[in-house]
């Protein structure tokens, strides 16, 4: 076994220093489209017609854009003739409040976050993951969190085998009917204080499969959600960013559909 030990020792550090500098590993990754209302043509509605999850609705006073429903398929950016829906690299879209995912022209941005009471978990968070019917893309990215590049453990965040040890319940998938009871049992099995995170557009709003005969439309109404992270799937850097934001270690970047910072 000397060969692996030597190899490991001589390989150096493969972990990226991000977010404290260095690459976040997402070069070239396309994120959710940016909405530029000033470029939008009146009465066009091409993007709304083409969006598979109805994340965009054409309304009389402009477009209603809900990033919580976006599956990052880029169809709207291809259909838009004017560049109102513009492709971007915005994938770090974790929010505490569901309304922050809906684009709003409101001059009042959402209020500054109150102290969350999560101070004790600042550098130590245990997560229980539940797959409530995802396509396995979110799981692939979550499994990638523990690879040497991202190395989730350096943040003090761990995945646990049982809900008894967990602080955060991380749910992926649109909650299929057979998974409803096990999901609720997992939540019931967690000791307080406990929180819930919806990872992936399916968990936030149902995504592509949502609303069919076999599944629900995400976690809304099923469990009280404390953190939303849309994406299809959200990449590991986005998941890390959302978790750090949850622990007040980094500010929230999406407010009322506008990316700040």
């Amino acid at each position, binding site marked *: 076994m000397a060969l692996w030990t030597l190899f490991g020792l001589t390989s150096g550090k493969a972990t990226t220093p991000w977010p404290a500098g260095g690459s976040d590993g997402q070069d070239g990754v396309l994120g959710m489209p940016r909405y530029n209302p000033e470029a939008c043509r009146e009465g066009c509605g091409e993007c709304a017609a083409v969006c598979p999850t109805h994340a965009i609705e054409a309304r009389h006073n402009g477009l209603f854009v809900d990033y919580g429903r976006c599956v990052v398929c880029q169809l709207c950016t291809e259909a838009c003739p004017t560049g109102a829906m513009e492709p971007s690299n915005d994938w770090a879209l974790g929010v505490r409040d569901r309304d922050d995912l809906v684009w709003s022209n409101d001059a009042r941005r959402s209020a500054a976050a109150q102290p969350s009471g999560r101070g004790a978990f600042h550098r130590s968070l245990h997560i229980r993951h539940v797959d409530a019917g995802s396509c396995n893309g979110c799981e692939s990215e979550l499994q990638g969190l523990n690879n040497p590049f991202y190395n989730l453990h350096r943040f003090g965040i761990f995945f646990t085998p049982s809900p*008894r040890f967990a602080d955060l319940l991380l749910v992926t998938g649109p909650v299929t009917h057979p998974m409803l009871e096990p999901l609720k049992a997992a939540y019931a*099995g967690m000791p307080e204080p406990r929180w819930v995170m919806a990872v992936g557009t399916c968990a936030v709003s149902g995504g592509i499969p949502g609303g069919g005969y076999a599944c629900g439309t995400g976690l809304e109404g099923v469990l009280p959600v404390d953190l939303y992270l849309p994406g299809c799937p959200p990449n590991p850097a986005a998941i890390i960013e959302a978790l750090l934001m949850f622990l007040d270690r980094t500010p929230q970047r999406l407010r009322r559909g506008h990316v700040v910072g």
Partner: protein
Amino acid sequence: MLADQLLILSALLWVIAAIVALCQWTALSRVLLVAGALSGIVAAVFELPDPSQTIVLPFRLAGEAVTFRLEPEALWLLGFGLTPALFACALMSPSKLGTGGWLFGVALSLVGALGVFGLQNGAALLVAWETMSLGGAAMILSERIETYRGRTVLFMLALLEVGSVALLLAVAILGLGTGSLDFGQFVARAPFLTTATEAGVGLLLLVGFGAKLGLLPFYEWFPGAYGSGSGASGAILSGVVLNAAFFGLARGLMNWLPAAPENAFPLLSVIVIVVATISAILTILYAFQQDDWRQLLSLSSAENASIAVVVLGAAMLFRSYGLQELAGLAWTVALLHLAGHALAKGALFLTADGIQRSTATYAITASGAGSDWVFGVGSLIAAMSLAAMPPTAGFVSEWFVFQSVFQGFHLPNLGGRLVLALTGAGLALTVAVAFATFVKVIGISVLGREKNRPARIPRFYSAIVGFLGLAVLALGVGMPVWLSALDVATQAHFGSAVSREMHSGLLLVPLTAKFAFISPSLLVIVMPLLSLVPLGLILASRRLPVRRTRVWYGGLSADPTRASTTALTFSNAMRTFYSFVYRPTADTERDADVEGYFVKKLVFEHDVAPIFGPLLFQPAERIVDVMASKLRLLQSGYLNVYLGLIGLLLLVVLGLTLA
């Protein structure tokens, strides 16, 4: 005087009980048996530490008077053996069939045991011995619990008869030497036996009493016979009957045989120690693999008896080198061990009966019986004693066993020290496996929860098992007091009251406090004090809000009984590890469609193979079969052959009388 009268009363009550049982007046018989047992216990309590008075019985056997006297050690073993027997008779066998026959068998066993303990005549001893064996067989056969009881009881009787033949030979050889069958004469003649006679008689005694005690290869009848009876039968067989057999062996090896001369190799002691150690290891290994209460406890009885014989052998070894005090220590320890064993094993056999009464099975499966906490605590303490956990009696005796064996460094020669060192290692193995065995039986069966039909143990069983558990605890805690009962006995056999050296105040010591000490008497005060801290934390945490949720199985709720450890699962790893001993078999039969692709049903069977069955007993069976088929000529059915045989016989008679 009172004690002798009580003993005679016991004997009488039991004999009357036997007759009454045959007349099917079972209630009366039961009362008589219980009364007889009670009077026997009271006699023992009052008489110890002195022996009982000598009584001359009103008949003669083989032209000799027969005397009856109980030595202190006999009183000790009798008293402790009768306690579970008393409760077994009070509770009766759970089988509703053959009650009269069962009570008759119990009466025979008890009378026989009393005879083995007290009769001082060789022929009388043999009669009592056979009565005891017969009683045991009658008990099991009458209960009609298993359909195959005939075969197992026959096997038991066959092996016991081998023992009886050996005993007969031993008594005959000793009797020939002394010209009398009285044991007083045997003791007087002991120093004059030659080495060869001593070794031969010693081996015969070992075989004779070993058949009952469960030394190798005789332990193989235990699981079959015990497993065909009830817990009550087991409580009697493992209590007073086992103690009687041990008493006979101890008396024979220590009193009828001399110590080995100074420079001679103590062959007999070494043989006793080695045989008993290996028996202990084998029996507990097989006990661990059983999944039936009675079979597991029976093999455990054989193991405990083997441990007592090991210590007896150590006593013989010390005695042959003149270390009288150490010999006394070892000898006393054997008695302590069997005392604790009788109480604890009786408690557990009655536990098995209690569980059987509410769940209709003796199998080791989750029964939920622990929810009756008196029952649960009683059986737990009894199991703790057999697993040698402080502060119970079993812990005391096991600790003393190891201390006696460790004293081997006092022996002058390397061989003796080596033997005792290896014995210590073997005993360590048995203690570890015994611990696992009792964790298995109590953990799975008593403490295992059964949410569908938690066992409701009948109140009497609950109370009695609780009482016996407390008795085991009291025996351990109060050992400094109970040890004084053996002062006279040790004085008589070893020249000094060794049992007085075994305790110093509240501490128990192996003759000197400088070597080591334990104190269950103090432990029983300290342990509850220590538990005040966690109890306090539990009470304090009552204030915290508690939210209860289901056990986490992965999101769905499982049937906890189906998912929990079974008797086989617990012992399967050992089965693989010791497969050279067990030679285990496991077969799965699949009932499937379409070349095995759609499975409908699975049948799983597993077993462990005994050692001496295929090695010794089956070849012996085959020899008997072969001989029987050869001798069939005698039954050929031809008249001329019969006439010819008669003629031959007449000629032989003629020749013998003329010569």
